[in-house]
């Protein structure tokens, strides 16, 4: 598997999804995985076992132990100058530390996607090519049956491995550039994505929404594209540890990057409408992103700043603390290939309002769904959850049950079937 990131160095959704899927495949059994990632951080807190060198690139091999599986898996890290980061704060702190380093800082979101700006230009393409080169070395030196590449940065690596080995290639589309750019597609990225999809023997999409994009925007024959939904890990954190909120007001939460893709402005507009009718309610926008300044001024302009709060970027336990204080979680994403976070909210007993333009809307029945642009419907849904307690009761009862049905083992089983069908065909 060629990925972008892998625990413990994960910056968000893509890493979580690859990890979950890998774990699921182990649980299902019968599949051995060699996981390749570009080198993420320089800290060497893991036991390095063997270093593979090839021409001008060095490849390091790790054995990553899954204790709960009582098995070990190969984990290869490639020395690369690509450093993924999730939020501007992190980016600045990284840059401050190593101003003189020769690393390339590439902005990604929690799904591990790049937000592509011109200044990375050809250099980033060089990096991707380098990763592909390393991949071909790995492909030549290791024995495997299937190549599985996660998202566009890893597609060239997957293609290279396929060219060297002749083994079938599966590409896993966690997002396309249409999701990331809200229509303003980067032609270079599109070209890489298109080439990956054309070369692949099978394409896995994380939702039917994404599948449709692949078929319609990349002109891929439908029979080549299979939807396998993401899942969610059972909640490890004990919710009771967190103090309940100390204010009597209801709390409505937006949690995610404050970027165009996530539709934060619709959340603010819905808040304005709810606040016209209700007083004892507060809105929280947790996260950071390039639209944050704009949102703060919008909130000020609408004169609701006394009921609207910005927390900045939340990490780790703070996320769960925020969720445990929330009465309803809103995800007004404009285009969300899947969206694991509403599942996490439901795990924390928080009712969710999600946009129809998200993949997760396809798997959740016990959630309120609105069109991201329909702020009246969104406001109405928020008001409904806050004022009619039966809704929260229902969501707690059935929503959680539904989320618990979404197991990585099930997704992994489907992926394994795809592998098997490819091997039989070969």
């Amino acid at each position, binding site marked *: 598997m060629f990925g972008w990131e892998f625990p413990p160095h994960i910056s968000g959704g893509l890493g979580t999804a690859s990890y979950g899927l890998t774990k699921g495949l182990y649980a299902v059994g019968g599949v051995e995985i060699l996981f390749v990632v570009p080198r993420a951080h320089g800290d060497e807190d893991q036991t390095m076992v063997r270093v593979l060198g090839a021409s001008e690139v060095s490849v390091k091999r790790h054995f990553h132990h899954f204790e709960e599986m009582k098995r070990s898996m190969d984990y290869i890290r490639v020395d690369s100058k690509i450093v993924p980061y999730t939020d501007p704060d992190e980016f600045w702190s990284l840059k401050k530390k190593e101003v003189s380093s020769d690393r390339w800082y590439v902005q990604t979101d929690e799904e591990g996607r790049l937000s592509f700006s011109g200044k990375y230009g050809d250099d980033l393409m060089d990096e991707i090519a380098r990763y592909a080169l390393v991949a071909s070395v790995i492909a030549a030196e290791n024995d495997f049956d299937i190549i599985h590449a996660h998202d566009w940065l890893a597609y060239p690596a997957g293609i290279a491995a396929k060219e060297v080995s002749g083994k079938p290639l599966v590409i896993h589309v966690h997002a396309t550039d249409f999701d990331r750019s809200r229509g303003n597609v980067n032609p270079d990225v599109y070209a890489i994505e298109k080439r990956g999809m054309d070369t692949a023997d099978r394409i896995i999409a994380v939702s039917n929404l994404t599948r449709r994009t692949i078929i319609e925007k990349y002109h891929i024959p439908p029979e080549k594209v299979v939807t396998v939904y993401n899942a969610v890990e059972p909640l490890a954190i004990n919710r009771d540890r967190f103090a309940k909120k100390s204010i009597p007001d209801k709390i409505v939460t937006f949690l995610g990057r404050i970027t165009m893709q996530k539709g934060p402005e619709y959340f603010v507009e819905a808040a304005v*409408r*709810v606040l*016209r*009718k209700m007083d004892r309610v507060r809105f929280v926008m947790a996260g950071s992103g390039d639209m944050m300044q704009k949102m703060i001024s919008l909130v000020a302009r609408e004169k609701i700043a006394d009921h609207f709060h910005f927390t900045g970027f939340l990490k780790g336990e703070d996320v769960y603390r925020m969720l445990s204080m929330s009465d309803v979680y809103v995800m007004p994403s404009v285009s969300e290939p899947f969206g694991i976070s509403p599942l996490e909210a439901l795990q924390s007993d928080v009712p969710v309002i999600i946009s129809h333009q998200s993949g997760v809307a396809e798997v959740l*029945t*016990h*959630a*309120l*769904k609105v069109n991201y642009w329909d702020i*009246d419907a969104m*406001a*109405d*849904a928020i*008001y*409904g959850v806050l*004022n*009619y*307690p*039966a*809704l929260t*009761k*229902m969501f707690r*009862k*059935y929503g959680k049950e539904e989320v618990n049905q979404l197991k990585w083992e099930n997704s992994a089983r489907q992926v394994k079937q795809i592998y098997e069908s490819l091997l039989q065909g070969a």
Partner: protein
Amino acid sequence: MRRISLYFQIHQPFRLRRYRFFDIGNDHYYYDDYLNESILRKVAEKSYLRANEVMLRLLERYEGFKVAFSVTGIALEQFELYAPEVLESFRRLAAHPRVEFLAETYAHSLASLVNRDEFVRQVEQHKKALKDHFGVTPGVFRNTELIYSDEIGAMVADMGFEGILTEGAKHVLGWKSPNYLYCNAINPRLKVLLKNFKMSDDIAFRFSDQNWEEWPLTAEKFAGWLRDIPPEEEIVGLFMDYETFGEHQWEETGIFDFLEALPGAVLDTTDFVFSTPLEAVRELQPVSEISVPYPISWADEERDLTAWLGNELQDEAFQKLYALEGKIRKIKDPAIRKDWNYLQASDHFYYMCTKFFSDGAVHSYFNPYDSPYDAFINFMNVLSDFEIRVNAAHAVKEGSPEVARLNKLLKEKEKELKAYEEELKKYRGERASRKTVRKRTTKKSAGGKTSRSTSGKSNRKRSSSSGA
């Protein structure tokens, strides 16, 4: 001589418009006129008018053909509004001696489950509507969705009805056959006529199903099944929605041809005769009582109430709605009474059903909502507004403590105002006298200042009195 009893149900709810929470307290109109009119027009043309035509023809053609209907009060209101010709064609049917109309709740409501007074009121209102529109007085009752229990039967008996229709639910009948007349377990004077759900659903649900082994169903085949019924069994109740003809089963499926051919096949090739429900309960002897401790209905696989009640959404909405009954009883305002009827229609609760996984097809029929949650939020918004109106009307009517308190407050404020006015007069008087002073001292320019401050003071007084 064995009997077959045909009964058809006609109902259309007033579907709610998209009622946002901003509307609460501001807009008191709840209905989606466009949707209601277009659905009613469509069903009227595809089903009611065509089927009525066939019925009239059959009544003319066959001396022995008989049929029974029930039309809810709110369906009658919709006919008046949107399709008066349907009402007219039902009038023609009602004038026929071999057509019977049954009583039911005016609002197609679930009142029988919670509130006897409201239940009785609605049945009375429906009886009156039947009298007004058709000049008939019903002797047999059918409850909303054929909901029935021993208790409900006893209430219906108390209202003077001779018989009631309900579902021949398997879990109630056990080994018994639905093809007999039974009687209520509490009051045996009330006869219970059961729906033969297999044969009814063969027409209502399976008629056009090409995967069904009996497809295509013909009148001859159906008559053959009737002949196969053991000779000692006395009556077959075929009860279904009238929309079966032309709407649930489209004209193209041949449903109207089937309907047209059925009476001939029955009368010519079997020993069955047609009988209206009232004739059946009068002429047949009940074989035993039937015990139904928990309510049954004709809906879904379970034949219970879970299509309307049972999940948290439905229970909450239902409770909140009927909590208003005590107050509404005393309110005469016709607008409130009308909304009270419309909001009670069981359909609103049906849309909130979360069993959509298994019975999705039926539940999504004419359902204006994307999800049960949507349906719930919309209904609750409407109900919130309705509650405000009911409370306001009730307060006026009752002279409740709240009104008394407000009246007292009002009097106090008036007193305060008077005091301020007095004070104002005093100031004005002062000002007038000062003006004369000012005239004398203009050259010193001190007077302007004084007058400004005086007017400022009186302004403040005024605003504080209105703000208090």
